[in-house]
Each structure stands twice: as C-alpha cells, then as structure tokens.
C-alpha cells in the first residue's frame, strides 16, 4: 500500500497539498476482494473497542438532535450529515458482531452484514464531513461521545483501504518521511538554521539535555515559519532552557486523523522518545489542535505508562508565564475575538489559557456566540482540510464561521491552532474576505516587552 495511486497524481507545487483534478469519487487503497475489505473494516473497528464505546453504541435513542450541533448539517440541511448517522454501518456492525445480543442478531439475521458499498458510501460521511470536533457529543442528551466513535470507525476504514486518497497519502508520507508536508528532519534543521540567521534569534536544535522540548507542526514549518521564530523569541524572553529535536519535532499525527493506529503510535513515540532522551520536564506542543489531543490525552496510553514529563499546549505555557509574571507584554490597543480550536478547547480542556494571554496583551476580547466549549469548528479539522473533494462542503461551513466573526465586530480574529489558521486562510482566499486569522503565539512574540 505504499505506492501512491497513479490515478490521482499529487499536486505538490500548490499551497495546499492535494491531488490533481479532484472529483467526487470513492477512494480505495490496495488490492483486495470486497469481502476482505469489509472483514478488515469490522475487525479493526472492534479491535480496540471496549466497555465505553459499547455503552455509547447501545444508548442512542435516535432523537436526531446531534444534527443541530453539526456545522455540516446546519449549513446544508442534508440529513445524511446527522452525526450519529455517520456511524450507521458501524452501529450495524457493532450490534451484529460485538454487542451483547450479537449472537441473536446473527442467528436471526436481524442486522445485516455491512457491505463494501455501504462503507464506500460512508467514506464521505466518516472523513469528508466530520471534523471530529465533538460539538455533537455535547449536544447529545444521552451524552454519547459521537466524535470518539468516528475516530474508532476510521480505524476500520483505514485497514479496509477506504480512506480519501489525499488523507491516506498525507498519512503515508508522514509515516515514511516523518512529515506529511515534506518537512523531513533535514529540511527542519535547515529551516531552523536559516530562520535563526534571518531573524537573529537563537533556535537550538538537538541539544543533548534541555528542560523544555518544543515541537512544531509541519504546517508551521512549511507555511507559518513565523511560529518557529516566535517560539524561539518567547523562550529567550523567558530564559527557558529549551530545544527542538530533529528526532522528534513533528507534532501533527496523520496516523490519528486517517485512522491508522500503528502509525499514530509511531508518530507519538518519536516525540515521547525525544523528550525522554533530552530529559525534558515539559513537552510543549505547538499551535495545532489534534497534536494536543494526540499527545496530551492519548500519549501515555500509547506509551503504556504515565509520561515522565508534562505535556502542555503553548497557550497553556504562555498563560502560566503570564500568571507567574514572567511574560512582559506590550499592550495592544485593539479588539480581538478568539476562535476556539476544538481539540484544544472543547475536547482538550484548555479553555481559559488563551483568554488569559489575550487579556495580558490588553486587547478588548469580544467573544463570539457561541464561544468556548460550544464554538463552531473552523470546518477543516480532523483531516478534512486535506480532502480536496470536500472543499465545496467545507466552504459552506466556513460561512458560518465568517458570520460569527463578523458579528463580533472585532478587528483581530485570533486562534491558537495552525490547522484552523490554514482553513481560515483558504476560506479567506475563496471568499475574498478581508479578515486574516492571527496566531496567538505570533501575537505574543510580536509584542514582547523586552
């Protein structure tokens, strides 16, 4: 499965990673009979299934209220985007293969075997139209964490070779080269060196020992290199003993997003091992949503024991520095609104930290409605922004976001996730919008009171 599908040549010179001439289609990876695809999908779906997932699967009352929480449904009103419906074949498979009454369902054939056609049809629903933002999980009156089940379903889809092609290719490249966007260790080292020269700032790479290990997402390395510089400036300002490591710098985890749990583990272990190797007390994750969830909440479970260091999102780190009085900032006389990245705020628990930093920057914060835990997703998370055929759908959801921001009347939209930022940039270009998303990290770095 390592060769890139020749039917869909990659377009590598574009600002966004994609394939040429995207069209509506069902992507398949590898060659295997349909029956095997279905079997693999089911096996890997239930492989790391457990009590909690089963409980969720058993409890849906089909009230349909989750639809109202989903930006894909709300902006299209197409019922197939109802979050729980996105899991339909998996619910069917669960009940037939794994649930308490599985035996009865099989015996009487009350729940039919899932077909490959069904899975193909659901590829769009599991990948293109779900950012795993988890808004529906909060809406659900029964409290089913629908988003976590979508992630589980992706495990099955990946092993069955039914992943949207770009997402598959990005994940495969990340596994092979260490970065989905070509930011190999060598490229990363070169970049840091070049940025250090350019900005006259010290960017330590591969220090043997350091208190703090920082990581970056490929999006930042390749598209928003300002983040690297900003991180370096702030660390210097705070006088932290820190480093980047070329054996563990990539924070994105396309193994997680595409549904390959083995790759997910490989990617996370690089960071964990690097942090252990340099004896770091703290691993700071960059402005990247899923990177935070992947390491902060899943890292220890992949590692098999509690992590010997603290995992923080950069915004948390900045907020602590503000509270500790170490971070001196110039006041910014502007109004701003904060876009809550789902995996960091809603599902990650870093809710107040970015606001603490914004307050320290002296901006007038105008919250969106809704904000914090129930803010709308940017529409590009969960790997969706890589899937080119989903662009039309994503732009629809983005209008929701633009409206929300316009309504605050704030001058500066700010966020703390480079994937959101990328989605905003793309949406901005598409709609020729006059608002540009700002990085909280860069805003801090630009306003350091030296």
């Amino acid at each position, binding site marked *: 499965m390592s060769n890139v599908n020749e039917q869909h040549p990659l377009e590598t010179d574009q600002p966004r990673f994609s394939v040429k001439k995207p069209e509506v289609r069902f992507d398949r990876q590898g060659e295997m009979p349909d029956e095997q695809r279905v079997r693999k999908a089911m096996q890997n779906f239930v492989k790391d299934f457990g009590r909690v997932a089963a409980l969720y699967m058993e409890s849906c009352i089909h009230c349909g209220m989750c639809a109202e929480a989903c930006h894909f449904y709300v902006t299209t009103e197409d019922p197939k985007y109802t979050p729980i419906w996105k899991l339909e074949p998996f619910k069917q498979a669960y009940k037939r293969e794994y*649930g308490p009454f599985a035996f009865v369902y099989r015996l009487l054939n009350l729940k039919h075997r899932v077909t490959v056609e069904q899975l193909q049809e659901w590829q769009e629903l599991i990948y293109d139209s779900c950012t795993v933002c988890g808004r529906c999980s909060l809406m659900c009156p029964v409290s089913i964490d629908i988003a976590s089940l979508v992630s589980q379903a992706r495990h099955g889809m990946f092993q069955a070779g039914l992943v949207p092609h770009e997402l598959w290719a990005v994940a495969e490249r990340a596994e092979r080269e260490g970065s989905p966007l070509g930011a190999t260790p060598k490229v990363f080292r070169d970049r840091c060196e070049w940025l250090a020269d350019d900005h006259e700032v010290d960017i330590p790479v591969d220090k043997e020992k350091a208190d703090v290990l920082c990581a970056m997402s490929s999006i930042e390395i390749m598209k928003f290199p300002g983040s690297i510089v900003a991180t370096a400036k702030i660390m210097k300002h705070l006088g932290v003993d820190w480093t980047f490591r070329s054996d563990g710098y990539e924070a994105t985890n396309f193994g997680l997003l595409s549904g390959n749990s083995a790759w997910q583990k490989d990617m996370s272990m690089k960071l964990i091992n690097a942090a252990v190797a340099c004896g770091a007390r703290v691993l700071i994750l960059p402005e990247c949503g899923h990177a935070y969830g992947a390491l902060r909440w899943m890292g220890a479970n992949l590692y098999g024991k509690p992590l010997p260091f603290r995992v923080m999102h950069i915004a948390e780190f900045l907020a602590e520095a503000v509270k500790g009085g170490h971070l001196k900032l110039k006041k910014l006389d502007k109004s701003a609104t904060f876009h809550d990245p789902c995996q960091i705020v809603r599902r990650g628990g870093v809710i107040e930290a970015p606001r603490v930093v914004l307050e320290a920057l002296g901006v007038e914060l105008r919250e969106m409605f809704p904000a914090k835990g129930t803010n709308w997703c940017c529409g590009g998370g969960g790997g969706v922004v890589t899937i080119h055929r989903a662009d039309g759908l994503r732009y629809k959801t983005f209008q929701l976001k633009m409206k929300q921001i316009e309504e605050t009347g704030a001058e500066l939209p700010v966020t703390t996730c480079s994937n959101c930022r990328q989605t905003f940039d793309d949406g901005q270009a598409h709609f020729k919008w006059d608002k540009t998303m700002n990085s909280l990290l860069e805003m801090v770095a630009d306003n350091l009171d030296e």
Partner: protein
Amino acid sequence: MNPSSTVLDHLRSRGLTRRGFLQYCASLAALMGLHHSSVNAMAEALGKARRPSVIWLPFQECTGCTESITRSGSPSIETLIFDLVSLDYQETLMAAAGHAAEEARAQAMKENFGKYLLLVDGSVATGENGAYSCIAGVSNLEALKEAAKGAAAVIAVGSCAAFGGLPKARPNPTAAVAVSEVVKDKPVVNIPGCPPIPEVMTGVLAHFLTFGRLPELDPLGRPKAFYGETIHDRCYRRPFYDQGKFAKTFDDEGARSGWCLYELGCKGPVTYNACATVKWNAGTSFPIQSGHGCLGCSEPDFWDLGGFYKPLSTVNWGSAKTLGAAAAAGVALGAAAAAAARKRQDDFIKGD
C-alpha cells in the same frame, strides 16, 4: 284479579286518590331519571294501562331477590307493583301450591300469549340436560324455553338470572348460564344485583307499563337509567379517593373517618349500579356507607374476580425464587456475551 281492568281503576277500587297516584308517578320518574314534565304523561299512560299478566319463574336462586322486592321501602311500592300487574305465578308469594299453581301458570300463559311479562330469578342449569334443577318434573331449561315463547319480554332479575351468578361460580358444576344465554329471540332486560335494589326492579316494570316498551339498555342488557354510572362515580367517599386518603384496615383512623375503602378491596370503581344514589331500605344506607367496600355484586362473575378484600390492582403472583433465577440467567447470558465479544476481539487481533 281481573287482568282486563286498568291500573287506575284497580288503584281507585283500593282507595288511592289521584293525588297519591301522581306522587307515586313522580317518585318513579325521579328514580328513572326522567324529567318532571313527564310525570303527567306517565300518570296518564299508567292510568290507562291494562294490568299485564306477569309470570315469575324461580330457577337456581336463593329467593333473595324476592325478599328484596318485598322489602321495597318507599310507601307500599310492593303493593303498588302487585297492583300494577297481575302477578299470576310467583311460587313464594302466591297462595296456591302444587298442581293448582302450575295450572294457574299454564292458564295465564295461554290466555295472555304474546303479551305477558316473564320475570326470572336464578340461573339456568344446563348440565345433564338441565336435570340439576327441576320444578314439577320439568327442568328449568325447558320451562324457560316454553315460557319465553309467549312472553312480550323477559326480565332477568338478579345477578344469577342476568349473568349466571353464584351457581355459575367456578367450577360451575351445574353448567349454569344466564337467561340471555337461553332466550335469544326475545328482548331480555338484565337487572343484576345480589339482590337488585327493589326500586330498580319496580322502576323497570313501571317503565314498561308507562311507555309500553323496555328502557334503554347498555351493552350488558342493563337499564342505563340505573346502571349508567359506577358506584365510585357517585360515592360520597369519592373526595377521599381523589385526595388519596384511604382506610388501611377496617378499624383504623381512616376507617373511622370515613375515608375511601379502595385499598380494602372496594369494587365501586368498576361496579355499575345505583346503590350510591337510590340506596337501600328506603334510602337509608348502602354498603359503603355502613363501612364496607362494594363487592361488585351486580357485575358479571363477581364471585370469581379475585377476592373481595383485595384492591382492584392486585396481581396474582410473586415468586422471588423465579425472579432470582431470571436475574442469574440474565447475568450469565451477559457474561457469556461479553466473553464471546472478547474472544472475537482476540481473534481479530491474532488474525490481523
């Protein structure tokens, strides 16, 4: 008794004034729920009515119904009723006996063929061709069929005649049935009760005489005027039910305070009868008023409905053992299902 004279003639000859007659009609009208404007019409109709011949056949019965009708409370109602009709056969009340009585019956049936009213109390034994209950060598079953042929209408008096009553109670050794099970081609009015309220019996007769037809009946063949509402609906203790105040035993504070007897097994909520309004013994009282729940004696099969002192909601089961076994079975099935699921998971991981 001369069956050809009118009711009013007959009453006058016995010294009843017109005013007294009107009063009687008014009380009957009230009893039947008729508008007071119908009193005059009623008096007129009753006055002109020919006294019909009435034949009263006793089957598997206890004579309680006859006792009841003779204890009718309002002034001389029983006298009036016996004056209103020509009671040509009633074993208990008639002077004649033996062959003379049977001859009187045969003669009355012959002379009034097609016009007489047939009253029946007691259920009809059908087992062994009706041999369980015979009068003068004729089974009740045969006697009823014979008498019904010439009857204008049949009135089943009491729960036994109306629904089979006590003789029909399980295991029903005589294969007792209700009159309506035997008589299919004549109108049958059921006046259930064990016994029925006397004024209800006389009221139905008066209605027939007044209007020349039977009163409006409910699906069980009961006159709606008397059986249209449940005891519960009209019970003076109903407010206590609505407030949730219940006597728990027959001598507790609730019982002394006259609270609802539902929990002591009162069948008032499902019993259609006029006890709570007409009452007994000339309007003196009725069972609930005397502190005992309604037995539901005017409802079909009241004897077999699970105990007079069990509340209506009573369930007839309860086995902790079986439920314990069910719980154990459920847990075992759940454990087996979980084990099977774990094994499938292991197989998937191995087979990958």
